[in-house]
């Protein structure tokens, strides 16, 4: 085992960006005959390196579409890299998509077992922690109600409780995680902080630099699938903020310019109208 708990080595992820997705035989043969089968390459990640030691907390930052979620998917084994390799030496709990395996037709009790098994635990293991999970989710009174009758908050509570039933080695958290009411969110935050204090490695995705700085000690900045900066959080966060500010300023300037032009045009038109009126009179 290497010294890293997560070792992402020169990972490239490739997608097909063809204008139409061919998903049936008929179309496939038509295109084949017409010689229109295309493959437009799109690299969601390009040679990304990320080496995390146990106990570190990493923030992954970048604008929308920069490849943050693709990276998380590669780490949680959902996507296979096109090139490069990923090694994860430990258990991963992903709090991005809570309750991915919840079946609305089953009751909460059945769903706890089903979800636990989807996460790779045995039935016995879930049974031992069943009371704990129920207590944390505060759903004691609804155990035998089909989940389709649950509110979305109740569903997320169920999902969160199952996902965090044991202390994972690696915790992946999306900032926009919204779990139920304020009180429950506080409870979740406490549980997460507890895990961090216990030495769990954290991967945190966020747009908010303040929370990032509070939670993490390292950062990886992605832009269009490429690593811009990687390392200690302070300089990266500052650099990121200035770039964002610059871009905002640029956008603002462009907007102002456009508005000025529009105003100018409007004035011209009005003047023309006035002239016409004057001529008519």
């Amino acid at each position, binding site marked *: 085992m290497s010294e890293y708990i997560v070792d992402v080595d020169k990972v490239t992820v490739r*997608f097909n960006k063809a204008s139409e997705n061919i*998903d049936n035989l008929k179309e496939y043969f038509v295109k084949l005959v017409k010689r229109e089968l295309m493959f437009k390459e799109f690299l969601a990640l390009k040679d990304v390196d990320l080496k995390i030691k146990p106990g570190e907390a990493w923030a992954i930052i970048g604008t929308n579409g920069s490849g943050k979620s693709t990276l998380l998917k590669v780490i*949680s084994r*959902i996507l296979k890299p096109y090139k490069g390799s990923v090694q994860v030496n430990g258990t991963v709990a*992903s709090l991005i998509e809570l309750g991915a395996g919840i079946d609305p*037709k089953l009751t909460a009790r059945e769903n706890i077992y089903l979800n636990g098994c989807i996460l790779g635990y045995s039935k016995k293991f879930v049974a031992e922690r069943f009371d704990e999970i129920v207590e944390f989710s505060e759903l004691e009174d609804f155990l035998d109600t089909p989940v389709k009758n649950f509110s979305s908050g109740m569903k997320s509570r169920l999902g969160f409780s199952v996902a965090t039933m*044991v202390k994972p080695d690696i915790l992946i958290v999306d900032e926009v995680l919204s779990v139920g009411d304020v009180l429950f969110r506080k409870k979740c935050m406490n549980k997460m902080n507890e895990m961090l204090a216990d030495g769990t490695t954290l991967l945190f995705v966020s747009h908010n630099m303040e929370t990032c700085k509070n939670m993490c000690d390292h950062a990886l900045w992605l832009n269009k699938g490429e690593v811009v900066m990687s390392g200690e959080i302070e300089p990266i966060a500052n650099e990121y903020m200035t770039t964002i500010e610059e871009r905002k300023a640029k956008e603002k300037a462009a907007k102002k310019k456009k508005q000025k032009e529009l105003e100018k045009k409007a004035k011209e038109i009005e003047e023309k109208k006035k002239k016409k009126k004057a001529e008519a009179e």
Partner: protein
Amino acid sequence: MTEERKHKFKEGSFLELLNYKDLLYQLVARDIKLKYRRSFLGYVWSVLNPLLIMIIMSIVFTMLFTKKTELFPIYLMCGRTVFEFIKTATDKALGAVTDNASLLKKTYVSKFMFPMSKITASMVDFVFSLGALVLLIIYYSFKYSRSLFSFWDLGIVIVIVEAYIFAMGLGFLLAALNVFFRDIKYIYHAITTMWVYCSAIFYNMGSFYDKGAKQIKEGTTPYALYLAKAIEYLNPAYIYIKQFRAFVWVPICGRKLEAWAFVDAKDFILGFAYAFLMFTIGVAVFRKSQDKFILYI
């Protein structure tokens, strides 16, 4: 870390399913439970349905065919239950990967799990539906006032194993193909319809052999004989049906049957060979293509 989730088998392999055996149990139990929960007739329905179909088909076909089949209702029921199992199991497995797209996009689970759970649930269903056959044999036992059950009936376990392995292979193959080509479903439905007619479910092979003998006598090419041989050697569904009948229907009818009804070692060798061949192909195709699933679902 806890001792849980130590992954004994390689990621992506078929045996990886064993890392998730509790999940398999959960998924199968879910399918069975949801099928029988809150439905008024519940289990009764899955027995009643084949019985009703049997009654209608028996009436129609005993009047239609000149070549008589001994105890036609039992003969028909044997063929239909086996074929229904292969059909529903593969049909459900076909959509298993695409139906679970949202789950596959969010968490990592052995992808073999989804077709496997559908096929296993169908297998359990198949065992349940044998209740209809039992009822039918009980009815005839009373009619002839002697027990028509025999220890031979236990042999169907062999048939179930063969058909289960075969259905897995075909199911994995179809599930993988369906990810890339969504119209496989329609093509497969057309094929199964054709398959029913090639599996000697409501007619018997005797008619082919009689016709073949007649053709030889007349000096023409015995096409009927060729057709019969093709069905007997190339159609795994018929091989399983034939074996099933050999264990249930043949012992009841006894020695008065014609030669086509009896099985020998060749049938079992062929049956297992087809099962393992299909299984190997299905697993290989599924394994090779599973990493690309995520890009197409």
